């Protein structure tokens, strides 16, 4: 194994034996460099996704159709900011600073989930994001709550507790619209049509072609394959769609009574690759918005520092 060659074989064997026993790895424990690197990559991508994920939904806060919906959406978007911070702080336990991670996001070096590069064209998109995008995130994050790295697992447990409301509020919006006027029904169906395939892509490429999957599984960073998680999501979601009279845009979709799976048609991975490479409908807009927000907040960060310094100086004066 070329990966492990550089590591102390005795320590590596001990490490793998710990994982085998189902133990959790903590920040000060010995870990292979590759494990640390994979975690930093995965966790920072995850944190960035939470933060960038605020943008498509934030787009609708001022236009929410009622005060109730506006309060809910504000609370949800605030949660996503919190999720980003939980995971950034988890990533910092691996020895990278948050400013470094954010710099990587803002310079385009780091990736975030491709789903957030699609536009939110109508109010129905907000419902469908909660239902499908948060729904897919829950499937993934429930698996990650059992990941082998302690700080990541604990952040996921915290996040999972909050995500359920995100999905429910989204499904509620979809339910109301699906039962509404023909125009509302058409609007929510259109949103499902646009978000369905990108939601399935959220789980990442098939494991056969996913370069990191095998190692992540062996080290129990991931406990299930991308394909298994994707299938679980489809199985959960189709009955929910049927219950409110919506369909998904897949002519190949059929139930296999033997495997009890909803089998779905081929995913267009070229679209996924294009979006990841920066050519999705909103990549540039999202990054421009993040950079602007960061730059616009600079004076607040500076003011806080100056204020703290002044307070400290005053305290020293009093003490003298």
């Amino acid at each position, binding site marked *: 194994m070329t990966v492990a060659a550089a590591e102390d074989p005795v320590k590596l064997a001990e490490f793998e034996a710990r994982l085998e026993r189902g133990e959790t790895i903590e920040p000060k424990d010995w870990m292979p460099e590759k494990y640390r690197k994979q975690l930093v990559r995965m966790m920072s991508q995850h944190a960035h996704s939470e933060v960038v994920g605020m943008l498509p939904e934030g787009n609708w806060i001022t236009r929410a159709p009622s005060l109730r919906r506006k309060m809910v959406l504000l609370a949800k978007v605030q949660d996503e900011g*919190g999720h980003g*911070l939980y995971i950034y*702080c988890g990533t910092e336990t691996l020895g990278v600073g948050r*400013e470094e991670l954010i710099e990587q996001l803002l310079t385009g070096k780091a990736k975030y989930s491709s789903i957030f590069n699609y536009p939110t064209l109508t109010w129905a998109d907000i419902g469908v994001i909660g239902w499908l995008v948060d729904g897919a995130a829950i499937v993934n994050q429930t698996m990650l709550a059992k990941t082998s790295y302690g700080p990541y697992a604990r*952040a996921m447990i915290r996040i999972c507790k909050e995500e359920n409301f995100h999905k429910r509020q989204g499904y509620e919006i979809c339910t109301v619209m699906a039962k509404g006027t023909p125009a509302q029904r058409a609007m929510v169906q259109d949103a499902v049509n646009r978000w369905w395939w990108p939601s399935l892509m959220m789980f990442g490429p098939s494991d056969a072609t996913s370069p990191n999957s095998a190692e992540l599984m062996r080290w129990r960073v991931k406990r299930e394959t991308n394909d298994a998680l994707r299938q679980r999501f489809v199985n959960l979601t189709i009955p929910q769609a049927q219950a409110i009279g919506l369909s998904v845009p897949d002519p190949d979709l059929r139930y296999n009574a033997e495997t009890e799976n909803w089998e779905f048609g081929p995913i267009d991975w070229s679209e996924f690759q294009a979006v990841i490479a920066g050519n999705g409908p909103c990549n540039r807009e999202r990054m421009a918005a993040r950079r602007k927000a960061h730059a616009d907040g600079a004076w607040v960060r500076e003011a806080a520092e100056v204020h703290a310094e002044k307070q400290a100086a005053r305290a020293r004066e009093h003490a003298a």
Partner: protein
Amino acid sequence: MSTETQWPLWEVFTQEGDAAPHEHAGSVHAVDAEHAMQNARDIYARRGKVVSLWVVPLDAITASSPGDAGPLFDPGSDKAYRHPQFYKSPRGVKIF
């Protein structure tokens, strides 16, 4: 991009409900204790049961290291006489 300094790290402990212990929740970056408290409130006490918060500068925490686990904690598991099961009492006597 301007040069960014990073505010210091504070570890956050939350007490979820009366009589519960304070438990480690995560960390925040903040310029001072007051700021850390505000950030901790926004991030770790957005909903539910938190009744008390502690914020502690990371530098103030001394943690045991995994290598010391043996000498530190092993003595705790080889003294059976620290446990009630070590002692015999006459049959039929109710001790508690």
